[in-house]
């Protein structure tokens, strides 16, 4: 029977290095992805993820299972990311969808999913637009959206990670999604997307 995350961490506390490897293997990718959506690029996200796992390992002797392991792990990650962003260590991607385009600048074409020519490039530009829109959100809204949308966490857990009530979190999420809805209006309004299916939060 598979051990729970809390049990694995308690085993790490007792000196079992293999349990730490199992936790690392399980949460390395979600953590790097969370941090990648919080800061500008993957290298910065990996630096922060390294720091998170290092702190988890260093704090193993003092670990007490007062909350879910993921709550503890993502709270460390969120605090590190918010501090890094506020310190300006990782410059955020500056993409303004509404900014006027200068004549000599290359125009930003709205990519179309139906376009056959150079599909990969179009896909990349769409992804860049979405990432850029998420990165323009205020840090706390960004963390709330990423945890809700990409990690499928419930309100109680996100509230514990961000240190806010469920009611405050719902308000935060509404404002964040409202901003994204306006910023990505051209993508959201596409009829092709309408038919594509349901919009349930996506799990990694």
């Amino acid at each position, binding site marked *: 029977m598979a051990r729970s995350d809390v049990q694995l961490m308690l085993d790490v506390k007792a000196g079992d290095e293999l349990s730490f490897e199992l936790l*690392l293997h399980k949460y*390395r*990718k979600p953590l*790097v*992805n969370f941090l*990648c959506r919080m800061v500008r690029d*993957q290298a910065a*996200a*990996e630096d922060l*993820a*390294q720091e998170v*796992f*290092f702190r988890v*390992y*260093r704090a193993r002797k003092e670990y007490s299972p007062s909350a879910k392991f993921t709550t503890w792990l993502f709270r460390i990650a969120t605090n590190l990311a918010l501090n890094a962003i506020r310190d300006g260590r990782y410059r955020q991607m500056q993409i303004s969808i509404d900014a006027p385009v200068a004549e000599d600048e290359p125009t930003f074409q709205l990519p179309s999913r139906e376009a056959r020519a150079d599909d990969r490039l179009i*896909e990349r530009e*769409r*992804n860049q637009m*979405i*990432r850029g829109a*998420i990165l323009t959100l205020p840090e706390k809204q960004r963390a709330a959206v990423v945890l*809700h*949308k*990409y990690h499928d966490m*419930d*309100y109680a857990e996100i509230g514990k990670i961000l240190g806010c009530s469920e*009611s405050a979190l*719902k*308000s935060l*999420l*509404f404002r964040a*999604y*409202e901003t*994204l*809805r306006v910023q*990505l*209006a051209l*993508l*959201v*309004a*596409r009829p092709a*997307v*309408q038919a*594509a*299916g*349901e*919009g*349930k*939060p*996506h799990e*990694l």
Partner: protein
Amino acid sequence: MSCEKISNALIAYLDGRANVQERSVVEAHLKVCAACQERAEEFRRLWHVMAEVPAVEPSPAFDARLRQRIAAAPKPKFWGWMIPAPRFALSVALLVVLSIWVGGRQPRPANPQIATANSEEQFRMIKDLGVLENYDVLSNFDALSDLPASTQPAQDQQQKPPSNAPGSGSGA
């Protein structure tokens, strides 16, 4: 209910985490509000668009880097338990030093015979305390009536050594 009031419940309604009451309130509002209906539809599409962004893979050297960092980190010292509370440890150390210093300043009799004589004298005083506290004995104490009451303080003053006065030292 107004659009503003259902806004907080709208996200929970769309992601399926709303409770029964929230769901019925939002559904009732969406039936009569085209703007919120449109907004809810766009939120659904937004989530679908956001899901297009693929997850990234951590670099292959991620685990090795972490292991290297853990191995390079300094090991906790045997006195590491003091680190979390250095102020407390310092306070305890100062208290111990102060206790030793104050204890060393207590006057100790050099000769054990003198110490024994002092303790015998103290015992005698304690033994006589009952007599001294007895008012009847003191009021009928003949020896006190023999003393000249008015002249005693004056005599005391005259008996004070002159060297106690400021500036009366031998060097003046």
